[in-house]
């Protein structure tokens, strides 16, 4: 009997807190049937560093620095279906609450003038990605096919969404699973 080809899934967290990934793990023992349908490419679960051709990409977190833009474009290039997961990926979320402030002022406040800082300096290691002046939700940078709202979306919401999608249905959450908070 020939095995059905598994869907290849990549996941990453950009300007997020990994809460959506933790919530994804909240599908608990349903991970086992899921692993019969999918296999993971680039993801914190596999530690693969670059994304290859995939069926589904799941991205948590918005865009707050140059590296986020590169990773997002890598995912868009490689994933047939790209899903923004969680408030930050969809609205910019908590990091975007700096959007009405000047970036220079933020860095000065955090690293130089904040009480209790001795000899503070603004980090300038060339390895560090440069922050963007504004935080953006993913759909402002590349085309996003689906959105799973929530901070984080519950394991049940993620499960419903993915199983609908894998079954070829338009994913719907419905009352109790659709949440913005």
């Amino acid at each position, binding site marked *: 009997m020939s095995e059905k080809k598994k869907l290849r899934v990549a996941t990453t967290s950009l300007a997020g807190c990994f809460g959506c990934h933790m919530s994804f793990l909240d599908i608990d023992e349903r991970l086992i049937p899921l692993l019969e349908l999918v296999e993971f490419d680039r993801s914190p679960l596999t530690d693969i560093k670059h994304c290859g051709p995939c069926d589904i990409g799941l991205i948590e977190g918005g865009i707050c620095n140059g590296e986020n833009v590169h990773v997002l474009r890598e995912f868009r290039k490689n994933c047939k279906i790209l899903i923004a997961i969680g408030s930050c990926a969809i609205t910019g979320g908590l990091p975007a609450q700096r959007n009405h402030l000047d970036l220079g002022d933020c860095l000065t406040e955090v690293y130089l003038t904040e009480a209790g800082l001795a000899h503070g300096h603004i980090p300038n290691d060339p390895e560090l990605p440069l922050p963007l002046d504004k935080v953006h939700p993913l759909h402002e940078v590349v085309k996003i096919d689906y959105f799973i709202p929530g901070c984080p979306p519950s394991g049940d919401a993620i499960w419903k969404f993915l199983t609908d999608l894998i079954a070829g249905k338009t994913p719907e959450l419905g009352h109790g699973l*659709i949440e*913005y908070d």
Partner: protein
Amino acid sequence: MNNTSTFQLDGTDVPFESGQTVMQAALAAGHYIPHLCYHPEFKPHGSCKLCTVKVGGRTAASCTMPAEAGLEIESDIEELNALRRTLVQMLFAEGNHFCPSCEKSGNCMLQALGYDLEVHTAGFRHMYPDRPLDASHPDILLDFNRCILCELCVRASSEVDGKNVFALAGRGITKHLIVNARSGLLNDTNIALTDKAMEVCPVGVILKKRVGFKQPIGERRYDKRPISAQALDDAPRAPSGAKHE
């Protein structure tokens, strides 16, 4: 004598009394029509357009439209829900709605409508406007980031409280809520916690201080039941806060 006749809403007979609007009659009969600027205790405002229905192929705001016998009205149809979704999305993109840190979350009509209409994203480019808070008052916080300009607080303060604490200023995209004080600060008005204006905001602008998150997230009004299942709560009722008679 009650002069009762009926119109049709999505194929169901809805009874009404003369003088009622389509919205009032529908809600009183337990049929939900989406709305944001309508409030059962106030004269209709007709500004948010969430309540738009189709009558004989034409669109009309059901909160201002008088009920008439024999009307055939469509409301819960994909054509209208798609337009409502776009209106909700524009409201989200135009303000700063960070629900995870909003005290109104779970009790918010805008959010509840988003849930009901399966809005997964604002879709548009977020405008991230700069709207500083007014925390001047010892008991009340104003977070202008979430204002949808429904004017309910303006109406409540002038019509019920007799105070005129709030007003809308500016036009078009620059239209915004202001506080009627020379300083522009809430602390320089005579607003009181017991004012009607304190309880009518459908979103999270006018907030009592020191009660934040007393009611846990997940156990709030629209967490329990979808907004569309709560039509009767918005059915017409007499103004409750009229203290100036």
